């Protein structure tokens, strides 16, 4: 536990609507060691996004409440630390990539403007000083790292001028700007088509390996999991039902839910039998 970069213990989150309380997370346990690539899979609505938001501290407060549990980042308690420090961690120590590249970029500012601002405040929190020029150089550099062919042009573009794949790349670049140790990705690329998605995944994998980041990838695509992550957590209805190394889990799933999930994946070989779905419930 102490060796983990991030560890989540018995996390409970409730949502309140119409005076009714919904227990959404009912005791989540996660460990993310440094330099690891972890996947979080599970049915839609099982609480994956909520878990990620809880880690990032992005839950909307009066609506969602963390009712129990602990979270440690690098040994520091995330839930008890002062707000200011918590905010300071975002973007610098941990960063995240949003699911939909089409809606996650501000449509009325140029990419350069948005990235420079992010860098400026990350620098400020880390106590670094950089001139506006240097900041631009750094932004261009990161855009280059995400394989943009013409960073200068992207820098000056508005999001609408970029294709979906380019936008997703920009989002990755934003997350990498201040070299966080932990990167959380919520279903990256699902909004893109297969060929583009494949590229993005490859890019992420390369970057994570190059930089030695810890990656928490949320997805429902088991193919993606298999190709990018070494360890998997499977969630269902607010709890982690099973976890293990990717190879083991795919080869020998223990829980019924995991088995059903794996069985439901359509195979390229054409041997998925849809009759098995009933078993999943």
């Amino acid at each position, binding site marked *: 536990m102490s060796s983990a970069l991030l560890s989540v213990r018995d996390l409970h989150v409730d949502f309140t*609507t*119409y*005076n*009714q309380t*919904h227990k959404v997370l009912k005791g989540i346990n996660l460990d993310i060691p440094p330099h690891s690539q972890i996947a979080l899979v599970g049915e839609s609505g099982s609480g994956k996004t909520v878990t990620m938001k809880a880690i990032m501290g992005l839950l909307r407060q009066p609506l969602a409440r963390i009712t129990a549990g602990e979270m440690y980042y690098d040994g520091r308690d995330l839930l008890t630390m002062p707000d200011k420090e918590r905010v300071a961690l975002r973007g610098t120590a941990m960063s995240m990539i949003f699911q939909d590249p089409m809606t996650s970029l501000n449509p009325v500012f140029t990419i350069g403007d948005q990235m420079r601002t992010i860098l400026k405040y990350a620098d400020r929190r880390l106590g670094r000083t950089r001139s506006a020029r240097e900041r631009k150089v750094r932004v261009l550099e990161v855009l280059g790292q995400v394989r943009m062919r013409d960073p200068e042009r992207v820098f000056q573009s508005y999001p609408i001028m970029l294709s979906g794949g380019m936008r997703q790349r920009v989002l990755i670049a934003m997350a990498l700007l201040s070299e966080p140790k932990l990167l959380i990705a919520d279903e990256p690329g699902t909004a893109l088509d297969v060929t583009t998605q494949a590229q993005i995944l490859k890019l992420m994998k390369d970057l994570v390996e190059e930089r030695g980041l810890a990656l928490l990838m949320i997805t429902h695509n088991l193919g993606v999991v298999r190709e990018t992550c070494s360890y998997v957590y499977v969630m269902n209805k607010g709890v982690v039902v099973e976890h293990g190394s990717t190879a083991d889990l795919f080869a020998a799933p223990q829980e019924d839910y995991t088995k059903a999930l794996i069985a439901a994946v359509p195979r390229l070989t054409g041997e998925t039998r849809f009759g098995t779905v*009933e078993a999943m*419930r």
Partner: protein
Amino acid sequence: MAHLSELAAEPQRLSNAYQNWYRFSRNPSAVIGTAIVIICILTAIFAPLITPYPEHVGAVVNFRERHLPPSADYWFGTDNVGRDIFTRVVFGMRISLLLALVVLATAVPVGTVLGLLAGYYGGWVEIVIMRFTDIALAIPGLVMVMAVAAVLSPDLLTSMIAIAALWWTWHARLIYSITRQTRVQDYIEAAETLGASKFHILFREILPNCVSALAVKTSLDAGFVILIGSTLSFLGLGIQPPTPDLGTMVASGAAFLPSYWWESVLPGCAILFVSLGFNLLGDGLRDMFDVEDVR
């Protein structure tokens, strides 16, 4: 059975009506707004019963008691010919509400239908309707109203005609822009492929998407219509005396500011009260119709 287990997982279901009511009743502004509007309407209906001097609505003059400040006898004081302002405010509420009701009851449907047609059909229909709306919007409303009031003799009916003659343009604009956004949605095409009639698409599919904006706009308008009446009166084109309406009272009382402040400020407060009610109600309705905003 698959669906049984799904049912079991589902928390106790709230009916839609109950959800709406819940949202509405949890919203303090909506509740206060409704209360105010109901009070105003009841007051207007039962005006002769509530007021101490119902005869002061007509041509009663009592120059010995003119310009009296609010007192136990005259709760809101008296005006320049010695009539009880409270009585006139209550009866004025009647006229003002009627004015708002009639104007909006004509302007809203007209504007809505034209906006729907222009937004849905596009092409020439759109050009004709929307250019005409543009033209009407470019005429300073007051000019139009004054012109109409000057052509016909200035009275309640004229005021209504004049105000309604321009008011629909705002609704047409609003509905038009919502319709244009809605028209291209998949669910409208879906309805078309399912064989729905144009009427169905316009009024059952698109219109419901306009209601919350419409409710807000209309409730805001109620206050504005009453106000326009007052500006008309200020320019001397309002309702004929001795009939009281709130706007006219504010306007004619303004001549006595600040010494006999109650003669315009108290009827002004009445307008504020009515408008506040409608505004709060409008906000509440918006929250209620906003099915996706869960609080």
